[in-house]
């Protein structure tokens, strides 16, 4: 007898996994058809999507881009696709896109808002991305003045004088500081700036204007602002100013100084307790009546101030949440290092608190940007207001989806970019180990 044992000498060639365990099939089984309920839900949702697309697709496929009026659109669609066909009339967007972008801004001056927008991106770059050289931040600081000059026109002397106010304040702060202590220096600096702005800036600007007449652009009344330009002006300014103001309010609310704390709490609670529309109506009506006759306080500036204040109150609470989330040890550690209040806030507390608050801050920004459409209530022609007036044109009377859809699309793009950026920022600032 002999034992024959067989040992395989060569390896089996690898076989592909069963079809049900790889690729899209496996993915589908795991994600879409993992149980009877899930399979059922998948089929129902798929049917809903297909149904929606089946109805929407012809509307897009039959769209008309070249027509002078809705009637023409309807005729062209009927002619090409049959009497009962429905189709989008995007010709209205083609006809009015300049109005959507610039409102009633004089068409020969379109380069000014366009340039402002490009500069906006340049000014945002160093704030948004750490790879951009830090020196660019100086441009970001100068940017609001430049844009004011570009959009509203007039002399560059006015923005220069407003900026000079900060210099005056800093100068006084430096001079007073060593002799009378930091609190008096702060008060002196703020007072000096205010005095400069209210009493000296005007005459100095007038003087500068006569010396530098070539720095004057043709003025454009803010009544002519409209469309997305208006939304972006209000939204971007509101966003830029509400964050620092919100930080100050949040710090003030947590401050031990009674007066500062009461002022901040009073401000935050009052503004949060009032709907934005009310504030806009105040800006539009009450200020008009209270201000002495003849004064013309630019309506868009009034709106920007109200939107900024409104957003700052919410921002303050968001940031206070971040501050509250920090362990007490962080404050104590900062004190133990011998940092004074502002140093502790700047170097230890705020970076952490702001990081925690990023999702909420961006949430605030997005809702602020969308809230800019509320200005349609006070008859400013933002994109929504423009839709109303375009629809009153007898050529386009009766058109709905195309216009509102276009506005929605642009708003979605803006808001989604903000959201994507916030995700990027969260990833970049993540310092913990997970």
């Amino acid at each position: 007898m002999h034992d024959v044992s067989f040992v395989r000498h060569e390896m089996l060639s690898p076989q592909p996994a069963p079809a049900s365990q790889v690729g899209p099939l496996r993915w589908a089984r795991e994600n879409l058809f993992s149980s009877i309920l899930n399979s059922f839900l998948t089929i129902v949702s798929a049917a809903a999507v297909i149904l929606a697309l089946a109805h929407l697709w012809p509307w897009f496929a039959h769209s008309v881009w070249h027509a002078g009026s809705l009637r023409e659109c309807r005729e062209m669609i009927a002619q090409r696709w049959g009497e009962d066909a429905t189709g989008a009339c995007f010709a209205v967007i083609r006809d009015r896109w300049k109005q959507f972008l610039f409102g009633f801004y004089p068409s020969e001056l379109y380069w000014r808002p366009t340039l402002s927008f490009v500069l906006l991106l340049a000014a945002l770059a160093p704030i948004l991305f750490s790879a951009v050289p830090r020196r660019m931040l100086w441009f970001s600081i100068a940017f609001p003045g430049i844009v004011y000059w570009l959009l509203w026109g007039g002399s560059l002397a006015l923005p220069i004088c407003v900026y000079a106010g900060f210099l005056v304040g800093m100068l006084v702060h430096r001079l007073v500081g060593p002799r009378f202590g930091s609190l008096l220096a702060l008060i002196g600096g703020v007072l000096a700036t205010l005095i400069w702005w209210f009493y000296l800036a005007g005459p100095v600007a007038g003087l500068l204007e006569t010396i530098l007449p070539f720095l004057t652009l043709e003025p454009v009344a803010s009544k002519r602002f409209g469309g997305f330009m208006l939304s972006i002006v209000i939204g971007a300014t509101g966003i830029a100013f509400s964050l620092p103001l919100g930080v100050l309010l949040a710090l003030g609310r947590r401050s031990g100084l009674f007066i500062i704390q009461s002022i901040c709490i009073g401000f935050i609670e009052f503004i949060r307790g009032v709907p934005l529309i009310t504030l806009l109506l105040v800006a539009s009506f009450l200020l008009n009546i209270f201000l002495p006759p003849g004064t013309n306080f630019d309506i868009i500036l009034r709106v920007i101030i109200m939107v900024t204040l409104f957003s700052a109150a919410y921002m303050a609470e968001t940031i206070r949440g971040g501050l509250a989330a920090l362990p007490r040890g962080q404050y104590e550690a900062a004190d133990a290092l011998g940092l004074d209040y502002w140093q502790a806030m700047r170097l230890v507390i705020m970076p952490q608190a702001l990081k925690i608050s990023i999702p909420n801050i961006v949430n605030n920004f997005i809702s602020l940007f969308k809230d800019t459409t509320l200005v349609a209530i006070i008859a400013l022609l933002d994109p929504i207001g423009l839709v109303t007036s375009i629809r009153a044109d007898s050529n386009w009377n009766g058109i709905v989806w195309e216009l509102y859809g276009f506005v929605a699309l642009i708003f979605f793009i803006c808001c989604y970019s903000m959201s994507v950026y916030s995700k990027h920022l969260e990833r970049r600032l993540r310092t913990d180990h997970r």
Partner: protein
Amino acid sequence: MTKIKAFIGPAVFLTFAAGAATAGTLGDVKGRDVLKCGVNTGFAGFAYPDSSGRWQGFDVAICRAVAAAVLGDQDKIEFVPTTGETRFTALTSGEIDVLPRNTTWTFTRDVDLKFTFAGVNYYDGQGFMVRKDLGVTSAKELDGATICVQTGTTTELNLADYFKTQGISYQPVPIQTPAEADQQFLGGACDAYTTDASQLATQRGTYPNPADYIILPEIISKEPLGPVVRQGDDEWADVVRWTYNALVAAEEYGVTKKNIDEMSSSENPEVRRLLGTEGDLGRMLGLDADWAKRAIAANGNYGEIFAETIGVGTPANIERGLNALWINGGLQYSPPFR
């Protein structure tokens, strides 16, 4: 605290353009060389911006005529869009000089709100529109109906009055703009839509199937619409009133945009006074002799403006009706120019 200054910054960018102190509106308008005109944010046929951003329409034409008369150029206008709620504040606060925004002349607006109506450029009345398949043939059958009505307007009050006197109930669906009304009404959010009859006709004309909707026979209100100015500035009110009268008179005497130059040398003494060939009516108004001539030349006489913006054949397709000249059985009537 230094950052707070960053916020105060823009507040100082304010344009504190102190206007010429209380020289009267006419003086102000001449001084700044631009007329501030409050218009509807969008009202088919009456006020809307065209694709080049130029405001057009029946109401807008009044402003253009005034600007032509006072400033010599019908485009020296700053248009200020206003809503039903913002229009009166805008006028009171001096944000606008004249408000030709389909505003109904009522006792309280004239007396209590301290406005002056410089004329009636359009005689209107409030009606109801319903879907045909609702089976309603009279407003009296609308008991318990949901009704779309624009807030902050006289239509809202008329509606309440009418249903009260009829002893029937209704459910209001408040809307802001005619465009919103279209959406609500076509979408079935309300059984009936009520507003000025002219506007009902205009809006119905834009629906995909206009024949599916009917306008009920009841007209429940008088709606004399006209340009409004602030009370207490009679000089300015006269300018607006007589500019408007000039347009009506021009239609009566057959003065049109085309023949205005020949008509200046007309034999008719009234036409000669109107066009400044004779007499000095313009100077009495604080203007020059050619004021009315420029106003008429801008967009034509009342009839021409009507025909071009809202008349039969335009999308609005409105008959002259009450707005015909008095000699044709309507109510448009200008006092004599002498």
